[in-house]
């Protein structure tokens, strides 16, 4: 890429962001306190996950820093607590807050990756089905129907089980993160495909698409440069809602022992491990990671709800 095209690109980005900043969406956003709060929470979570060493008071990867005399230290405000361990410590003296932050990193990575992959699959299939129609449409949408017969949870569990049976336990644990991502991604593509297909069907009939096709533009150009931008907004809303679904799915699968192994704990794995200590009274091992999870999902859901209403022209 040479200098002038970089300058053009920079100029374009600046122009686009200026347009976004002046748009109704931003002013709507700034006037919705719930949306601002939810966004702040999600942003905080994402930053913490991206830079865990900055946010976490202790390192959980460095085993030498753990002290067994801190094991099962209760939260700071309970007798026996220590201000160094605000939310207490686990069975090996690991700080719970730090474990949550490092676990969040894995949970969010899995969820974002799963959403990105299922968005890609769903959008491409939806575009193809809506644009070409005929047997391509029939094939894709029947596959979607079959999959929609089963809830995403069962589909993800089933994919996990198939991989386990096909490649054995060892391989499964080695690639646990990627298997989990694919399981969640493949369980969610239908939502995008259905949305995009319907919109593409409408857009394909519009004059601008006809004009582009008649002027001899290649089909892929018409699909991705003309139609895609016009179906992108609802896809964005679906993706936000699906992110909450993916976070819950990851945590749930890890909780029942089908997701991330304890060597690299995600939020769900932390709750699973902590669940074993509920009965003996060390409740903070499970309850705090769980609360962190609920707050995150709640914020994402609130943001998704707001986005859906804000982008819906009929509600204006």
């Amino acid at each position: 890429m040479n200098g002038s095209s970089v300058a053009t690109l920079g100029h374009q980005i600046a122009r686009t962001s200026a347009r976004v900043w002046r748009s109704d969406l931003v002013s709507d956003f700034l006037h919705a306190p719930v949306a601002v709060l939810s966004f702040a929470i999600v942003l905080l979570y994402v930053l913490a996950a991206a830079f865990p060493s900055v946010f976490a008071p202790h390192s959980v990867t460095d085993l030498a820093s753990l002290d067994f005399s801190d094991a099962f230290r209760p939260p700071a405000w309970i007798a026996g607590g220590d201000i160094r361990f605000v939310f207490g410590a686990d069975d090996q003296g690991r700080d719970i807050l730090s474990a949550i932050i490092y676990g969040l990193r894995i949970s969010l990575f899995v969820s974002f990756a799963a959403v990105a992959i299922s968005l890609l699959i769903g959008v491409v299939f939806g575009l193809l089905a809506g644009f070409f129609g005929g047997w391509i449409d029939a094939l894709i949408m029947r596959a979607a129907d079959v999959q929609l017969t089963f809830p995403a949870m069962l589909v993800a569990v089933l994919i996990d089980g198939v991989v386990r049976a096909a490649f054995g336990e060892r391989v499964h644990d080695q690639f646990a993160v990627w298997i989990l991502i694919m399981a969640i991604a493949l369980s969610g593509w239908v939502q995008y495909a259905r949305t995009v297909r319907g919109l593409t069907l409408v857009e394909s009939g519009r004059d601008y698409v006809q004009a582009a096709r008649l002027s001899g533009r290649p089909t892929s150009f018409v699909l991705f440069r003309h139609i895609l931008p016009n179906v992108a907004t609802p896809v964005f809303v679906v993706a936000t809602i699906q992110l909450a679904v993916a976070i819950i799915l990851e945590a749930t699968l890890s909780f029942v022992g089908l997701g991330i192994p304890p060597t690299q704990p995600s939020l769900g794995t932390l709750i699973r491990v902590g669940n074993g200590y509920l009965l003996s009274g060390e409740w903070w091992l499970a309850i705090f990671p769980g609360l962190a999870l609920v707050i995150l999902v709640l914020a994402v859901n609130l943001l998704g709800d707001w986005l859906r209403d804000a982008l819906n022209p009929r509600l204006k």
Partner: protein
Amino acid sequence: MISYLLQRLGQSLLVLFIVVIMAFLLFRFLGDPIVSILGANSTGMQRDELRRQMGLDAPLIVQFFEYLWQTMRGDFGLSYRLGQPVARVLLERAPATIELATSGLLLALIIGIPAGIYTAIRGRSIASQLTLGVSLIGISMPSFFMGMLLIWIFSINLGWLPSFGRGETVQLGWWSTGFATRSGLAALVMPALTISVFQIAMIMRLVRAEMLQVMRMEYIRFAKARGLSSRSVYIHHALRNTLVPVITITGLQFGSVIAFAAITESVFQWPGLGLLFLQSVAAADVPMLAAYLVLIAVVFVTINLLVDLSYYAIDPRIKTMAEQKGPAA
């Protein structure tokens, strides 16, 4: 009408057929039954011999129809993990899940519908704002964490309810019920509540949205103008017209209730189909997975079909839509 019925029935059978093909492929290619029967030390000749005896050397298509025939008779082979016929294990576990799912769904309807009506009618009151807020938490709360919180509060700290199992069950023929004993009912409370939380929130929001829409209609204003009591308007005019979509979606939700049941059963060690499924996945018990796949498909396809048909019967507008293009979503 007839052609629509046949079309829907054909679609359902097609879905089932595809699922059976998938189950067959799983069954045939993932678990090698020959090795699992003879052990890893068997010779090639022994394996070929058994393969011939079991008909596994036949063309794939012949094997598939054999599998289809067995499936239709309810013969799913032996579970790798338990060494028992899959069908018998499924039958043993089914009552626990059915009782749990039904109780959860009933609870969801009993709480969700009145809450939805209330929040629609008294939208500005503090109580309904609070209810809406709580419902959002209900949607955002993963069911396993909900179950865990309940166990922590009511079993560990208060000691009111048992934290796992089904309690004492009574055998009625092949059906084992937990409804007949005190301990069975006590054991049901928390799992049923866990399953229903998401459904309560969903039904409530649905009823509210439908009520708000219906109450803007001309005939509601007219009924009010006629001087009918608001109670009569809300119940007889508005609610009635909201119930059709509510019942439809609730029916469709039965599927997700069963999916969430797997998680809830795992939290409460409830001896049902869902727990069995998760254990089978963890043990890569392929015959069990294949059978579960087929079983769930039959349940879901049947429910979807019934819901679609009832919709068609109740709402005459669907008829014209169905004739124009495909079934109503």
